[in-house]
């Protein structure tokens, strides 16, 4: 049976520590780019800080980890790519990016409403000695191509290889966990198969506190967020459509 991998991120648990960002970078060989600005860096997982706009004791803040939402319907980045470098893997529901085929036109980046795609503005480079820590299972991307979260696809390959070696057709769910999920110290990020109704993460996605961003675009993102705070849940839709949000 085809899987539909997705995540539920409990924003009430997120402390904004950035461990998910670090784990993502280490797992996926994301180079450190000292000359990058916040808008030119490579951050397939990015923790953003949002406040309710109030001051003093009324002020509240939330940390929102933003990564590719792996949209299921009308996936904005897939239809626009001129050379099929982006596709939705029907077996997993993961939106895959093929940097080897990417032209670097960045049309997919303009199409993504979540700003979850990143361009390699510089040549990848690591400080002397640090290249020894590179993950051999993940190819380094060259300058001039787009990249994004692929739900640690190398880990999925490893899990599949392990299952095949054991003569199994299906992977053990415990063998495939993305790096950000594994690294989160508060277990705020949970990963599961939404095609399995008994998967606890799948059930969590349907809890009353769960929401997704910009659902009215009709792209059916597979990243859910959770919060008991009404003002946080109100961030789900656009600022303009929810005049009462005002971050507070």
């Amino acid at each position, binding site marked *: 049976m085809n899987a539909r991998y997705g995540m539920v991120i409990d924003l009430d648990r997120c402390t904004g520590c950035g461990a998910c960002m670090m784990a993502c970078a280490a797992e996926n060989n994301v180079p450190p780019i000292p000359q990058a600005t916040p808008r030119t860096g490579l951050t397939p997982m990015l923790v953003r800080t949002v406040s309710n706009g109030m001051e003093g004791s009324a002020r509240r803040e939330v940390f929102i980890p933003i990564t590719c939402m792996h949209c299921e319907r009308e996936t904005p980045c897939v239809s626009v*790519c*001129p050379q099929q470098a982006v596709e939705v893997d029907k077996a997993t529901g993961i939106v895959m990016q093929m940097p080897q085929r990417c032209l670097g*036109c960045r049309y997919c*980046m303009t199409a993504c409403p979540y700003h979850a795609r990143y361009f390699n503005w510089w040549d990848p480079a690591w400080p002397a000695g640090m290249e020894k820590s590179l993950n051999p299972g993940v190819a380094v991307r060259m300058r001039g191509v787009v990249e994004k979260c692929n739900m640690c696809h190398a880990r999925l390959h490893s899990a599949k290889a392990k299952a095949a070696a054991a003569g199994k057709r299906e992977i053990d769910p415990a063998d495939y966990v993305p790096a950000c999920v594994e690294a989160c110290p508060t277990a705020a990020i949970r990963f599961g198969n939404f095609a399995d109704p008994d998967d606890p993460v799948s059930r969590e996605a349907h809890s009353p506190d769960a929401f997704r*961003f910009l659902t009215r675009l009709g*792209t059916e993102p597979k990243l859910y967020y959770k919060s008991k705070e009404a003002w946080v849940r109100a961030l789900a839709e*656009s*600022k*303009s459509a929810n005049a009462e949000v005002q971050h507070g």
Partner: protein
Amino acid sequence: MASSTFTDTRWIARGEERTSLPQFLLWLAPWAVVFAVGIYAAGLCLYYGLNQTNMDNRFAFGLWIFLDLGIIALGAGAFFTGFLVYILKRAKLQPILNTAVVVGFICYSGAVAILMVDVGQPLRAWFTFWHPNTHSMLTEVTFCISCYLLVLCLEYVPILLRNRQLRKLPSFLVFEHQLHKLMPVLAGVGTLLSFFHQGSLGGLYGVLRGRPFAFREGFLIWPSTFFLFILSAIASGPSFLMLVTAAVEKITGRRLVSQELFQRLGFISGVLLAIYIAAKSIDTLIWLNFTSPSVGFAPWQYYNYKPFGLPILFAEIVLFGLLPAFLLTYRRSAKRRGLLLSAAALACAGILLNRFVLTVQTLALPTLAFDEFLHYTPSWQEVASFGGVLGYGVIVYSLSYRYLPLFAQPKGENTHVSGS
């Protein structure tokens, strides 16, 4: 007069008067500098990468895409004039045809050159032909622009072969004659290709579901911007041809085409502009009332971000739309050359503004509730690279004007052509 050892008169058409070669070179010199700086800037971008620009992950398209879309629209005069002359048999537009081809060739070749710098991996450009995604508007753009540039080259060659020295070679003469017979076919092919790539450039943003400011419903697979771009391109193309011709007349001090032809071009431009503005107004109303609210965005909020306020929408529809459409079509204003050219300039400015709004404003606006409104200023490399295209255009046009019959009259026309 230039000395006999430093002259190019034997390359200039018999009977044509042109400035001396040193003076001509002096005219070219600053443009050559602009071109050289552009080449250097583009070289930096190719060698060091697009970190030389001020684009970023949020502003992934910038000045280059805006100007590419702009000059491709303005260059539409090439295919549209060919269509009018060869397909609709409007022979009175013949005198402007050669210059339209050269302007179109410059616009398209310049745009393609900049696109090659704008992509992160230019050596992979052929991937689009090898692994085409038929659902992508950019695939359609790539195919049609590449093919149309080839058509423009084929249309430019016969003009090139009419050079005084090249005509002396019998094989060139035969080749030119054979190519000339192909012109109606090329005009038809060019029209078809241009129809699709002008439209696809509009569709490029119109299909972006994730950018509700640009997203439009449409007809079958094409968003409304597909049709609006075609209309606006064929409306502005003739106006741009008028402006180029008027500029050449001013610089050379010669009258190159008749006032009647200018008025004819102006009328075509004005009528099409009026149709475009009517269609755009309807489209805007549909977007304001249905399309944008249906995807969760209150459209008027977009105009709260300064400087992208409502005056831009007003300028696009009234100042750069209805006003020039009226001035170009109203007989009394069209008879006054200054007014006619001002109206043509307004029409072209309006189309550029439209491309700016669709490309730059779309990316500046937030989508997520916690996004900020973005600012972007192009780097000097971006500006200089496009300056290079301008320099290239002036050089190619100047050479073409000097050595080729750009403003030839059709047989039987008695319109005075100065300098010949």
